[in-house]
């Protein structure tokens, strides 16, 4: 029962494009709740080279979210632990680990080695840092975030879409900024977003991420759980990605975001 078709399906294109994925390098920044599934699925699905950056060590009380790590890896580097998990599934996958923090000093050099960057970090300073670095190095940035029962996903600096600064030229007041509080955070929430980050990165890699800029909003306890928002494009007056950018190098992001005083970021009122 041979069936002629008028066009290849997107799925067939995807299959032929497996070679493209094999020749793509992807850097995942953060091997925590978001990074765990993103790393696992990218490593298992034939990415050419996978970079994993995380300065922290594995802690047992995070394992419910960071399901790529194990009790046996407690107190060892998260980046190395994540690499071991990938290699257990595909021993041939090329993984490069960066068991330290990306900073204004080293981020550009590392990011320039990759085709696509995944922001799986957990703080606002890192988000501005990665956005600026991806604009300066001209790389697409697949950004995910999660807190409590909510998550958000978007692809920045891709297809004439916005960068993080186009959306947020000014950082929020420090009272509203917080790191992820462990208690009450269900592991599945960052799990959903991290898995979708892997999908978006694969779509970018094989050239199937061509839609207008959008922003996915996930609320685990509401119906519907997902909402897709049509997003502004690149802003011509953006200091990072605009027509006349004034930002020509990375800056001090802790100072920019007012998070240098880390006590404040423990504020109980979380937005």
């Amino acid at each position, binding site marked *: 029962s041979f069936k002629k078709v008028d066009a290849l399906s997107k799925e067939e294109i995807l299959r032929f494009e497996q070679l493209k994925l094999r020749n793509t390098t992807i850097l995942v920044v*953060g091997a*925590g*709740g*978001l*990074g765990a599934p993103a790393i696992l699925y990218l490593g298992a699905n034939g990415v050419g080279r996978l970079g994993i950056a995380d300065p922290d060590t594995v802690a047992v009380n995070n394992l419910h979210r960071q399901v790529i790590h194990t009790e046996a890896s407690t107190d060892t580097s998260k980046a190395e632990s994540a690499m071991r998990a990938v290699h257990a599934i595909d021993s041939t996958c090329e993984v490069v680990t960066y068991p330290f923090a990306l900073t204004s000093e080293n981020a550009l050099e590392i990011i320039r080695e990759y085709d696509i960057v995944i922001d*799986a*970090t*957990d*703080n*606002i300073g890192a*988000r501005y840092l990665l956005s600026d670095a991806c604009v300066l190095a001209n790389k697409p940035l697949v950004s*995910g*975030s*999660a*807190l*409590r029962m*909510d*998550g*958000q996903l978007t692809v920045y600096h891709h297809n004439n879409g916005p960068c993080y600064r186009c*959306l*947020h*030229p*000014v*950082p*929020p*007041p420090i*009272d*509203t*900024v*917080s*790191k*992820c509080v462990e208690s009450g*955070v269900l592991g599945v929430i*960052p799990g959903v977003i991290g898995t979708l980050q892997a999908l978006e990165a694969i779509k970018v890699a094989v050239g199937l991420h061509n839609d207008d800029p959008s*922003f996915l*909003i996930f*609320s685990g306890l*509401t119906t519907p759980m997902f*909402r*897709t*928002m*049509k*997003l*502004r494009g690149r802003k011509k007056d953006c200091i990072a990605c605009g027509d006349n950018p004034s930002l020509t190098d990375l800056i001090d992001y802790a100072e920019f975001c007012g998070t240098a005083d880390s006590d404040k970021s423990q504020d109980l*009122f*979380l*937005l």
Partner: protein
Amino acid sequence: MAELKINVEFSGGMELLFKNIRKHTLAIPAQSKVNPSGPATLQDLIFYLRDNLMTEKKDLFVDKDTVRPGILVLINNVDWELCDELEYQLEDKDEIVFISTLHGG
């Protein structure tokens, strides 16, 4: 006095500022207060929410005459930047979402 029915939703933690209630259906005057000769705008809605639904921490929602940095506004699922932002003229049954950008992971 004519009123508009507006569906407002808070997301990403914004609901904590509004009695932990995510979805609100409001009837707000069709006439602008900010600009009394014109129809109600998104800015009127923001002030209405601040004045009628909040009792404290108003600065975590409003900064001067607009929402504070870090809040995205959706008008019928479209980024308000594509819809005149504060000057957007409200229509009956509009769906407006205020969403706090998350940084955790």
